[in-house]
């Protein structure tokens, strides 16, 4: 019952009454040109510091992955493929998934991680004490602590901008609209159409990732259209919210406790006999 409610309306479950529709990202990697405007626009808006000058040799990806100081990450994959005489170059802009069932949120002991009225998940810098529970909880490896301030950081889906009716910086900058921002329902519908279009055009490899409310994180608030297996892009194929077991554990604990109580009551009753 509770799990279903969360899947439908995480903002309401977090106490936001009369909240706006759930907002998210649909990143269509089939039209990404790997320009990295999203990475820079994000950093400029959020004043995220530079994240190291390392030539990785992983194609044109020198960002390596999401982290405390990288909230958008464009992956480049050079692979054998049918596109151009045996070569295919995939590009994809990764970001925090803003999960429906967010482990980072569940484990945060301080209330620094928060579900917003838009259904997104943010870190409140003024609350975070840098305990790092969220870091190991995230099934996508998105969130991390920044050595310079010790706090955990990740994409906020530009919470401050959303509140003022502005688009997140990355989506606004994206030259080809590979990053689309909007109400999650609309994005899911649009994504479904896009996949069908690509399938009709013979690109059967097109698939959605993270859009399914029945997946291991209850569906992501930021989901993707991919042209290959998620692993190819460095994404976990079947992410499961690490705290999913929690309710079951609590349930077991509850049953155990109830049994104990029942036993005690039974003992009393029988004792009265």
């Amino acid at each position, binding site marked *: 019952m509770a799990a279903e409610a969360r899947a439908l309306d995480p903002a309401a479950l*977090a106490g936001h009454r009369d909240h706006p529709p759930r907002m998210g990202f649909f990143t269509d990697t089939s039209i990404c040109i790997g*320009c990295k405007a999203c990475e820079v*626009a994000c950093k400029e808006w959020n004043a995220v510091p530079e994240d190291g000058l390392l030539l990785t040799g992983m194609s044109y990806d020198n960002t390596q992955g999401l982290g405390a100081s990288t909230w958008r990450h464009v992956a480049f994959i050079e692979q054998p493929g049918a596109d151009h005489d045996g070569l295919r170059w995939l590009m994809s802009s990764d970001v925090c998934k803003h999960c429906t069932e967010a482990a980072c949120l569940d484990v945060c002991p301080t209330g620094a991680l928060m579900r917003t009225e838009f259904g997104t998940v*943010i870190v409140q810098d*003024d609350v975070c004490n840098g305990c790092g529970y969220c870091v190991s909880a995230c099934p996508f490896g998105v969130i991390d602590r920044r050595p310079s301030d010790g706090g955990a950081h990740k994409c906020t889906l530009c919470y401050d901008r959303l509140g003022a009716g502005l688009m997140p910086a990355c989506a606004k900058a994206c030259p080809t609209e590979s990053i689309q921002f909007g109400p999650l329902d609309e994005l899911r519908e649009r994504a479904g159409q896009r996949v069908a279009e690509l399938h009709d055009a013979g690109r059967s490899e097109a698939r959605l990732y993270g859009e399914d409310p029945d997946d291991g994180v209850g569906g992501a608030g930021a989901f993707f259209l991919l042209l290959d297996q998620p692993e190819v892009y460095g994404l976990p194929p079947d992410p499961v919210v690490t705290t999913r077991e929690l309710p079951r554990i609590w349930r077991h604990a509850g049953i155990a406790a109830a049994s104990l109580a029942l036993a005690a009551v039974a003992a009393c009753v029988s004792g009265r006999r």
Partner: protein
Amino acid sequence: MISMDTRRWIESWPVFRQVAEHDPFGLGAAVKSRRTDQLEPRVRRADEVVKSVCPYCAVGCGQQVYVEAGRVTQIEGDPDSPVSRGRLCPKGSASLQLTTGDAREYRVRYRRPFGTEWEDLDLDTAMDMIADRVISARSTGWQSHFDGVRTRRTLALASLGGATLDNEENYLMKKLFTALGAIQIENQARL
């Protein structure tokens, strides 16, 4: 009687908020900090939004420059532009760092002939020294004729400009240098 301060204090208790704000697990409304609650995008505080154009490539993407208290605080794409529709590439998106970043120089630097270090120089003096050098070089290198034909020029002065110069800047440069008789006036546009 409970004072307002105390009430606020009690109301900020997580447990109180979790109940009062229908956020039993403390995931959202109940844990929202005052700072988060007061969050607003800095562009909203701008005194002025100035229309501009990206200084990198020649596509000419529209930019909006947000100014707050005499400082540029944000540069974004201009959605009105029929060229760019509000979008910017990574370079255009880095315009704030380009224009306000740490790498910028704000002081005149001077290296005297055979000098081993930079020295300070005030702008007015520098301008005066440069004007003197132009006049002197122009006249040393003056060539009224070449191979018997009139040339009325100097070859002692040259200029090379980047192509982020405004049209108005190029115009004044061409006008001044041509009047001075300098012909080696060039631009990135050649290259």
